[in-house]
């Protein structure tokens, strides 16, 4: 299998793409998608360390399972919020959701 550094570079790149997506996109659904990318990057990293660096240790996988669980919950809530915002303001542009601005 590949050295751990390569996997880290890969997951790092995936995470940074997610960051870019969150910062650059205006559509709330797209922002949520970018967040999914970031979560995946982290989960891959956990599994890779668990399997490659500490073979036989189960913790990495368990953590990844929790990450998937939380991601599912987060996405469900996030989409619910998006729908609600859309119904209230007829827009899913995150720039329009600025009631708590100065």
């Amino acid at each position, binding site marked *: 299998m*590949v050295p751990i550094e390569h996997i880290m*570079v890969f997951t790092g790149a995936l995470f940074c793409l997610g960051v870019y997506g969150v910062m650059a996109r205006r559509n709330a659904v797209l922002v949520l998608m970018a967040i999914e990318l970031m979560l995946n990057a982290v989960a891959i990293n956990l599994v890779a360390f668990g399997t490659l660096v500490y073979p036989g240790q189960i913790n990495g996988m368990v953590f990844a399972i929790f990450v998937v669980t939380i991601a599912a919950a987060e996405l469900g809530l996030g989409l619910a919020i998006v729908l609600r915002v859309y119904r209230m303001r007829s827009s899913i542009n995150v720039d329009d959701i600025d009631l708590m601005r100065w």
Partner: protein
Amino acid sequence: MELSAVAFYVVAGVTLVAALGVVVARSVVYAALLLILSLVMTGLIYLLLLADFLALIQILVYGGTVSILLLFALMLTPPETRPELNHRGWALGAVTSGALFALLLVASLADKWPAAGAARHISLVDLGRALFSTWAVPFEVASVVLLVALLGALTIARSTSPGSKIARRASA
């Protein structure tokens, strides 16, 4: 180079390209489809890392449920209300994520990490045993989180009755 390594580089490359597509695609639907591709590829990576159960979950949860959820969300929000895809913050986003990537690159390559040992497959039985013994409490807490998220999503997404506080504010 052994076969699994070649497979990893190929899959990782596809994942990255798909992820890039997600964040730059002009069409929302394309972005969603590319995200599904990226998530399925992630499942393949889990398989290469000998985490077959996790790969299964990944494809079931992400490839199935999450994608469908996203597509439904897109369908419920009509296309004419969709904003322009990118806004003026994109340059700052590029710079920030670039800097973060540079930092992660330095961190990953500069330090000496422990050499990768021989990957060992973990049986589903062991995983199940660990989840319900060592990790029993976090597991139960996670289930409660899911339940709360479910109820919360229901409450938030429910249609507002006219005259309620939220509806009044929306019409204002």
